[in-house]
């Protein structure tokens, strides 16, 4: 179990750094990490199985509850997959509303992440500032969609609620202006602060080669110089009309990923401004009555990266198979090259820097792929280790 001077530091399953339960076992030598083993699956709820029991309209609510932070990504993805299978054409207004909600969600998610990341390096004041500026977005959501989270806006064929743009337009623009100002101000306070830089620069480096090999997506990939963004590569919703400028950094460290997110937030603000300027009128849902035997793939650029759903319909309202791949699922394996060699103190911020959303991932365990070595130590074994009153200090 223990070899040499290694000390096992469990990071989780219940750890204040994460709001979700996951167990990362860090094998450390002194302060530096020599190996990691990740035991996930504390949030496995069997969503793919449950999706095979509900009708298509109900599955939208189920996939919405895969993850709370990106709670419009999964429904968008699922609805697009269903629409592809059915050959449905989404009305223009619905496409614009989807874009608006998705981009608002990206802003809320990135601000949330920025706050949590700074909390991870112990900078609580900026955490509070970021969340203070995120709050108006939540309130906007509450007014637009009826809830602060879980917007329940999408249905196959369009959106469920119309937006009263006449009333909401000034409010949205006001919040956007506030966020733009706050982000420019706070991003400076983050990126130019010497101590913050010391914690982020050159930490958790993921090279472009590794990024390709591990198939990472989203800001994690874009921070490593991979220019991939579903919004630009395979435009859906209204992104073709509105246009997206993909932000890429090449350093691949935590700071690069942070800056990518900051720039993306500003880009989202601009997309929203364009979106509400050019939103067309018209119906918001496309009617459908038949359920074909067909399959479809839906893709969406969630705040954390590319989200992909595969849906197979079997001629009934209940889908035959729903496959969900959340972005964190793709990004998690890349933690192995990112973590090894850095200190325990860096671990939370490196883990945080991929913006992990374990409830999306809801499964998984990491193997050190390079040498295939895994050491598993269950919680009970670990307790045993504690109970023997072998002070880890004395083991050294």
């Amino acid at each position, binding site marked *: 179990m223990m070899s040499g001077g290694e000390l096992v530091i469990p990071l989780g399953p219940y750890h204040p750094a994460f709001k979700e339960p996951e167990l990362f076992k860090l094998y450390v030598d002194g302060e530096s990490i020599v190996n990691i083993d990740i035991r996930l699956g504390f949030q496995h709820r069997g969503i793919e199985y449950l999706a095979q029991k509900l009708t298509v309209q109900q599955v939208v609510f189920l996939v919405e509850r895969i993850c709370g932070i990106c709670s419009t990504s999964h429904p968008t993805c699922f609805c697009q997959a269903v629409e592809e299978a059915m050959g449905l054409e989404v009305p223009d207004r619905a496409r614009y509303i989807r874009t608006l909600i998705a981009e608002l969600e990206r802003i809320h998610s990135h601000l949330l992440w920025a706050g949590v990341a700074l909390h991870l390096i112990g900078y609580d004041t900026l955490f509070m500032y970021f969340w203070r500026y995120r709050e108006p977005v939540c309130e906007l959501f509450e007014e637009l969609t009826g809830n602060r989270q879980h917007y329940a806006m999408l249905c196959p064929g369009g959106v469920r609620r119309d937006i009263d743009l006449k009333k909401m337009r000034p409010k949205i623009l006001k919040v956007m202006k506030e966020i733009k100002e706050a982000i420019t101000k706070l991003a400076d306070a983050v990126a130019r602060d010497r101590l913050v830089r010391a914690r982020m620069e050159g930490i958790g480096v993921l090279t472009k080669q590794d990024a390709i090999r591990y198939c990472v997506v989203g800001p994690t990939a874009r921070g490593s110089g991979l220019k991939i963004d579903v919004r630009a590569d395979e435009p859906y919703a209204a992104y073709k009309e509105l246009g997206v400028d993909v932000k890429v950094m090449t350093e691949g460290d935590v700071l690069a990923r942070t800056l990518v997110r900051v720039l993306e937030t500003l880009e989202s603000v601009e997309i929203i401004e364009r979106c509400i300027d050019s939103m067309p009128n018209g119906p918001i849902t496309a009617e459908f009555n038949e359920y074909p035997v067909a399959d479809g793939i839906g893709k969406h650029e969630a705040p954390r990266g590319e989200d992909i759903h595969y849906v197979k319909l079997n001629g009934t309202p209940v889908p035959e198979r729903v496959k969900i791949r959340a972005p964190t699922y793709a990004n998690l394996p890349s933690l192995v090259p990112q973590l090894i060699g850095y200190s325990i103190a860096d671990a939370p911020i490196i883990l945080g820097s991929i913006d992990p959303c374990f409830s999306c991932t809801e499964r998984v365990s990491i193997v050190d792929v390079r040498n295939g070595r895994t050491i598993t130590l269950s919680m009970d074994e670990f307790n045993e280790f504690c109970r023997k009153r072998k*002070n880890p200090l004395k083991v050294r």
Partner: protein
Amino acid sequence: MIDLWVVGLSIAYIVLIGLLIAPNIGLFLTWIHRKLGARMQWRIGPPIYQPWADVIKLLSKELIVPETAHRATFLLAPLLALATVILAFLIMPFVGRTPLAFVGDVIVVIYLMSMPALAAMIGGSASGNPYAAVGVQREMTLIFSYELPFIMAALVPILKARSLKFIDIINYQLGNGPLVFTISGFLAFVVMVMVMQAKLALPPFDIPEAKTEIIAGPYVEYSGPLLALFKLAHAVMLLVVACFVSNMLLGGLIVSDWSSYVVILTDLLLIAVKILVVIIIAAFIRFYNPRLRPDQAFGMFWKTITFIAALALILSFVPIPYF
């Protein structure tokens, strides 16, 4: 020959000042930290009775000694922490001259001030938790790195006043003006403020109990009354550190003349202002810095801060006014 009433008076002094006044002022100072932080973070913050409620609640809770812990040390560590900081407070002059003053009290206080960290280490390693183990490791390395510059900075007023007694240092400052207004004194002040953050385990040096890395470090297994003692010790430590810095560099916490009401009032006000200045500086550093990584913190102490301390020490020998 010891008079019985002197012993009685000393005990009364210890009980009154040490056990009643010191913890209460300390808790009030922690409230200032929390409230100021909250207001600067756009929040309302806790009400003024909050620290007392926290401590009373913790004292009333169940006392748990984990199976994995070494019982006696686990129980004694928080007591040690609280006792030493209160003793440190008692030795220092605060408002009046302390009856416990003696030659070399500065040295004793410096040592007593590092005791809470040691107590945390003892308690942490007795609790047998891996997070605590990492916390202890970090605490230990941190102590090694900040004690040297701290002592060097403390030597500046000692050398200026040519005495190891608080009261002499204060008297020297009463004659020549607070030391912080000299160059070496100011540098020593900067060093002490940084070391103070580390001693109080506040950001950027809250490394041993980093909440998001190792939960609460050495305190992870502590609960109920034992945790309350640690919290109290921490609160008193806040006061002790502020007193130490004020006494050494800011002109001392003493009423210079007990015969004039005006002097008493202004001096009392000055005492409050001095402590508040130190506390608010600590709060600002705390709220506007991220936590450093252990190796960065050690590097900072060993390189920059030790260098500043050495510079202050050298400059204090220069026989020019305001050096």
